[in-house]
């Protein structure tokens, strides 16, 4: 007999989503100058959650002007006072974390298990961490009196909406900058709820401005002549465009872009632990993670054993209602992203890689993609080169550590990598040779506010998190 899970949905009643939201400029919600709006939907049901104002160029002007006005007094505040605002924000996020987790799950489609246990705790921790830096900047190694840059233009993606907001806003405010932030068009709600957190914290008006919108809004924001800092997390293609836009200006730029992380499994690795790590590496957040371990490099001698165990484990993953506390795999964030994943996976099949799909039923509405594994993948295959940003794993093999390193580094990206082995010296030797900004040994997809995160090569530049993360917002 088989045991079925009973549904265990988290209650939606903890969150009250208004039928419409404005832009958050200078401490107030306001309509877009041209009155445009867009709808945000729940990716798991396609239900319209709310209608949100869509910022245009005039709104960007207004928001940047508000941030500029706020900058003088905000940057002049004693660091200890700025710190207290950030501590307040961290606390209020903790207090409202269940509400924000449910909201994020509704708007993004990711499982409540993840928003509740990963996103929200990390959001609060990030504000808590950078709050403490605000009055200690002279000890951070960036000179005796490091100065803020001014107005920061920040554009964030949809995969970790509130967490990416925290990564951007917390260090910016701690260092005395003011911000204009554009959330992604498919996930604007948590940023707008964050505006309410700012209100509750009594944050001076204009210090944080939120401009929901599409790519055009982001483009106008980063091109605005009165911003001093541009921070972007998103695709490598857009990152390059932004780098061209700010060329020849004095704007400081940090970019957190795509990845094609290698997860390297040696033959002495404990298979069950490695399999857990492989699964979290590629199926966490439906694989919509820039640092996902999307290329599995497995030593040839244990290939079959690892692959069998992996398929067994993947078959137990529960895909479905993101609000269900037992759900492992939620919805893909948008129809557009689903189409991209589908097309790349089809290409993998067409190019001759062997496709295996987890045996699970997909809900009839919403955007869904079953966990998928490609084996027999070569380095020339598209699924081994392009970032898929979905629950699709490509399996390659290697014989020697040197070959593993060469294959791992054979990519234009350089964001993350994983190493699974029992041998300590091998971990150190391999980690040393990997050209990636974050390396996990015998673990994967771990994040912490104290730990710098960011890429080599075409995965971008600059670091977020830790002492290193301050540099992006200081005039050094």
């Amino acid at each position: 007999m088989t045991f079925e899970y009973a549904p265990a949905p988290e209650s939606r009643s903890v969150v009250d989503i208004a039928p419409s939201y404005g832009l958050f400029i200078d401490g107030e919600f306001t309509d877009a100058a041209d009155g445009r709006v867009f709808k945000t939907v729940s990716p798991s049901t396609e239900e319209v959650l709310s209608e949100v104002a869509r910022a245009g160029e005039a709104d960007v002007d207004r928001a940047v002007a508000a941030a500029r006005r706020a900058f003088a007094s905000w940057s002049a505040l004693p660091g200890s006072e700025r710190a207290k605002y950030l501590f307040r924000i961290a606390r209020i996020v903790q207090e409202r974390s269940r509400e924000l987790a449910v909201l994020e799950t509704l708007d993004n489609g990711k499982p409540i298990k993840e928003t509740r246990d990963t996103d929200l705790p990390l959001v609060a921790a990030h504000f808590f961490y950078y709050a403490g830096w605000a009055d200690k900047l002279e000890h951070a190694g960036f000179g005796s009196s490091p100065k803020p840059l001014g107005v920061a233009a920040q554009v964030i993606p949809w995969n970790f909406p509130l967490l990416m907001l925290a990564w951007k806003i917390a260090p910016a405010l701690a260092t005395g900058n003011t911000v204009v932030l554009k959330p992604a068009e498919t996930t604007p709600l948590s940023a707008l709820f964050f505006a309410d957190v700012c209100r509750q914290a009594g944050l001076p008006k204009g210090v944080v401005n939120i401009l929901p919108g599409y790519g055009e809004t982001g483009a106008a924001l980063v091109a605005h002549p009165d911003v001093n800092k541009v921070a972007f997390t998103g695709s490598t293609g857009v990152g390059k465009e932004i780098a061209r836009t700010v060329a020849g200006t004095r704007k400081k730029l940090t970019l957190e872009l795509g990845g094609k992380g290698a997860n390297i499994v040696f033959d002495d690795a404990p298979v069950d632990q490695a399999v857990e790590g492989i699964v979290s590496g590629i199926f966490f957040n439906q694989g919509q993670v820039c640092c996902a371990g999307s290329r599995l490099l497995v030593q040839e001698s244990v290939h079959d054993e690892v692959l069998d165990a992996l398929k067994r484990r993947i078959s137990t993953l529960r895909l479905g209602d993101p609000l269900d506390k037992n759900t492992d795999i939620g919805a893909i964030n948008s129809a557009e992203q689903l189409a991209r994943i589908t097309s790349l996976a089809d290409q993998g099949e067409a190019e001759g890689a062997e496709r295996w799909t987890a045996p699970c039923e997909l809900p009839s509405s919403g955007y869904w993609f079953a966990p998928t594994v490609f084996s027999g993948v070569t380095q020339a295959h598209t699924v081994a080169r392009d970032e898929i940003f979905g629950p699709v794993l490509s399996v390659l093999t290697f014989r020697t550590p040197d070959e593993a390193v060469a294959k791992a580094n054979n990519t234009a990206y350089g964001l993350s990598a994983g190493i699974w082995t029992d041998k300590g010296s091998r971990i150190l030797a391999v980690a040393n040779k990997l050209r990636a900004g974050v390396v996990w040994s015998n673990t994967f997809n771990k994040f912490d506010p104290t730990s710098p995160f960011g890429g080599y090569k075409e995965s971008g530049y600059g670091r977020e998190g830790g002492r290193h993360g301050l540099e992006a917002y200081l005039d050094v």
Partner: protein
Amino acid sequence: MSERLSVFKTYKLYVGGKFPRSESGRVYEVTGSKDENWLANAPLSSRKDARDAVVAARKAFGGWSGATAYNRGQVLYRVAEMLEGRRSQFTREVADAEGLSKAKAAALVDLTVDRWVWYAGWTDKIAQIAGGANPVAGPFFNLSTPEPTGVVAVLAPQESSLLGLVSVLAPVIATGNTAVVVASERSPLPALSLGEVLATSDVPGGVVNVLSGRTAEIAPTLASHMDVNAVDLTGADPALATELEIAAADNLKRVLRPRTGEDFAATPGTERLTAFLETKTVWHTTGSLGASGSSY
């Protein structure tokens, strides 16, 4: 008895540890800054020379970045020693190049020697300044370490032919990067002579490659080269710098923009060191030593 006729030197590029002429066979006339006297015919590097230099720099990167920091420090110090022994030659070249008195030129050469010493001392300290352990909330040992970015194209300052050149070059290689340097267009001779110093200082071939010629001709090839990881635009004018920064975006090169009025005589900070470093953060699983979580 007639005065002895001096022996001129044919100035050549320094690429991959060798001293080639430009593959194009071209030269250009280099004249003194003050009197416009002919000084030498310097190689007029082509785009192909630039690509060859990138190949040499890439080839040298593994060994140089993999050398111990102590070793790199000793090599940089050796450069200072070699330069010290050639002070009179460089004093003459800098005086001619920049139109300075012997005394002023000598002071610049002294500063240049000292600059190598300053950066020699940084090689095994920068990781302690720029890296460190991060107290993550979990059973992990988390360590951030700076690593060299890779191949760095350096456009040397146009005005300061030796001190400026070394001030932008030394920090790039101190941390384990390899460099393709485009010398001051008008005053390339001290840079080309520096190649001779580097070649006798245990600097492995290819770690530093020196090109002379038209900055505006060579630099776009370097800025758009997909195997170059970073560019230092110090020697580019604003219009060229913007064009190069746009080209650099094609593979997201790290870009150090030109600064106005940079004083190369002042003691440098660490900015030029950290500009071409990547931070690698490694999470090591620590686990626990028993069910109690205690080692006792």
